[in-house]
């Protein structure tokens, strides 16, 4: 199954043969995989949102407007009540009352127009953590509000919170996978290389950890986190908890590959040359596994995203006011709230899109790096 990718000759159109390194070849194959490229583009967009969240989000994630509880999507108009066209779109002021059924009835006030502005001034922030500024991509004049996707129960803009939420959901996968990848590579490498009793023990340990049901372990580990942590610290706590569960599976996969690689000639040669074991493992064996490890890791990123979402959904992950797509869904679990305010389900859709994008990319990577597999050959 796992073979060392060798230099392969390719036929470019001018008839000359050209040698391409395995990496170049793989990247080429990846680029041809249409779905993977779609996924990749989606991820790029999401990560741009993540990095520049403050810029793209019209409002800060904790910007409440309590008189706009569960405001339905409030989008700009071009035509006002009397049919006059305005080049600059605007929103009306809006407020609600409860009717006799305790339904929120929002009435717009046509006398109050708030114009949409691009590069508007909003809540202050630091661009890339360094440059203080308050310019956001778009916004409306205060005290007007813009709710492109509606507002939550305390009048916070769902779109803004979705964008800020990507900071958690998109990074938890990368970070968590990196941590478990490092651990998995080391332990899997040692296990596969040395074989024998070490291998046996380590494999049993991996199996043991995989025996414990994930969700429960997550819950238990979360409750051991001390309470005085800041939200950033809680975030890292959650990442490490997730990685704690994830490394075992990766270690097993790595070990399998290392087992077969260790039998190959170049390893025997290295041993004969008297290189110390750790050097062989780290500098010779592991790099060969890297491509497959990356595939395995990228395919496991969705699990981290889903894990964090599930934890936050049951209240044991990222805490308010910091949004994550998981904790934004807490109210959506309530059917009555969902029926009356369906826009609170948007975070679920974003989770879906992000996971799907990662799945596509991971699948593409797998096909690209494993030329032995049939699916890697594109027409």
């Amino acid at each position, binding site marked *: 199954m796992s073979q060392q990718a060798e230099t392969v000759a390719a036929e470019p159109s001018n008839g000359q043969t050209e040698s391409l390194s395995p990496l170049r070849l793989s990247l080429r194959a990846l680029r041809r995989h*249409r*779905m993977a490229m779609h996924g990749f583009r989606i991820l790029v967009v999401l990560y741009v949102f993540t990095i520049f969240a403050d810029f793209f989000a019209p409002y800060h994630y904790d910007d409440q407007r309590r008189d706009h509880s569960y405001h339905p999507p409030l989008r700009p108009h071009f035509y006002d009540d009397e049919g006059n066209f305005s080049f600059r779109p605007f929103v009306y002021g809006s407020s609600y009352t409860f009717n006799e059924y305790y339904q929120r009835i929002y009435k717009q006030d046509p006398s109050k127009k708030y114009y949409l502005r691009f590069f508007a001034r909003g809540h202050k922030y630091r661009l890339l953590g360094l440059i203080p500024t308050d310019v956001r991509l778009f916004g409306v004049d205060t005290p007007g509000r813009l709710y492109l996707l509606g507002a939550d129960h305390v009048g916070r803009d769902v779109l803004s919170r979705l964008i800020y939420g990507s900071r958690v959901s998109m990074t938890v996968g990368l970070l968590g996978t990196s941590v478990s990848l490092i651990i998995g590579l080391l332990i899997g490498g040692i296990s596969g290389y040395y074989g024998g009793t070490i291998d046996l023990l380590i494999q*049993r340990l991996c*199996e*043991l*950890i*995989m*025996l*414990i*049901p994930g*969700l*429960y*372990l997550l*819950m*238990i*580990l979360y*409750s*051991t986190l001390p309470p005085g942590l800041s939200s950033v610290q809680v975030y890292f706590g959650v990442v490490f908890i997730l990685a704690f569960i994830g490394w075992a599976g990766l270690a097993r996969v790595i070990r399998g590959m290392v087992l077969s690689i260790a039998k190959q000639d170049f390893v025997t040669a290295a041993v004969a040359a008297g290189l110390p074991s750790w050097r062989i493992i780290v500098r010779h064996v592991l790099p060969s596994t890297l491509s497959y490890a990356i595939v395995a890791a990228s395919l496991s990123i*969705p699990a981290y995203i*889903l894990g964090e*979402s*599930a934890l936050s*959904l*049951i209240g044991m992950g990222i805490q308010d006011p910091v949004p994550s797509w998981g904790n934004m*869904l807490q109210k*959506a*679990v309530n*059917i009555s709230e*969902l*029926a009356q305010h*369906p826009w609170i*389900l948007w975070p*679920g*859709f974003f*989770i*879906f*899109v992000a*996971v*799907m994008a990662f*799945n*596509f990319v991971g*699948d593409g990577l797998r096909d690209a790096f494993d030329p032995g*597999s*049939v*699916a890697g050959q*594109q*027409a």
Partner: protein
Amino acid sequence: MISYITRRILIALLMLLAASILGYGFMKLAPGDYFDRLKQDSRVSQEYIEKERVKYRLDSPVYVQYLAWLSRFVRGDFGYSFEYKRPVAQLIGDRLINTLILNIAAITLTWLVAIPLGIYAAVHQYRPSDKVLSSISFMGMSLPHFFLALLLLYLFSGELQWLPAGGLKSVDYDQLTVSGKLADLAAHLAIPVAVLVVGALAGLQRIMRGNMLDVLRQQYVTTARAKGLSEHRVIYKHALRNAVNPLITIFGYQFASLFSGAALLEIITSYPGLGFLLFNAVRSKDEFLVMGGFMMGALMLLIGNLLADVLLAVVDPRISYS
């Protein structure tokens, strides 16, 4: 082979023991115990709570409690649930049946749909239909369980009212005829099964497709075609059988999942299965129930792994165990 199996069983028993220690340790890691909840009932006196804790030995050191649990466990006494005040074995047994029904229905449906779809995709490789199927599979795989469950519940039970609101049986189940009962069960199972199937379909379908493609490129298939056999026969009589073989090992792994319940899914659809039972047990520190469920899950996983490896050997003559 027999000696291999015996060795594996022995190792599995050791693993179970180690797992029980690990699981028990983790469970005790979280602070507090079940009776802490009683403290919030202002009518209950401190003495009563202390008495209950001593009764269940919750005041002893952890290893003492573990050994007490272990000695009873190996004798088949899985203890009592604090919350439900019933024997753990019974509780798990009741809910297990529900979970089995759900999982068996889901797995059956998944296989019934995935295999033909996989074959179809392989035969029509790279054509638009393959790509569409591929995309749909990925979408299915990427949908979070809880999200899909909510969506379906909201649509079919909330808005359209075609399906019941959760649970396993209607209130008047007992008065229904046999066919009525079956229909009732089916209606209640619809949403949870749909969620599980959508998630599992993708993976299986793609594996089937991959296997089929591998087989279709083999020499003997080319030979069969050269011999003039109809494409239909080539695919269904020769290729298929070999493509399905590796899937049998997957079944071994799925064996373990038969007995596990997805907690969030069950909570949202109000399905009385194991997942929900154990989720609440972990939350409320209903110790014996947690351990009972955990050990059963671990046992099933180990059996499943063993089954998968054995089946692999049976099916693939290149692999042999000594």
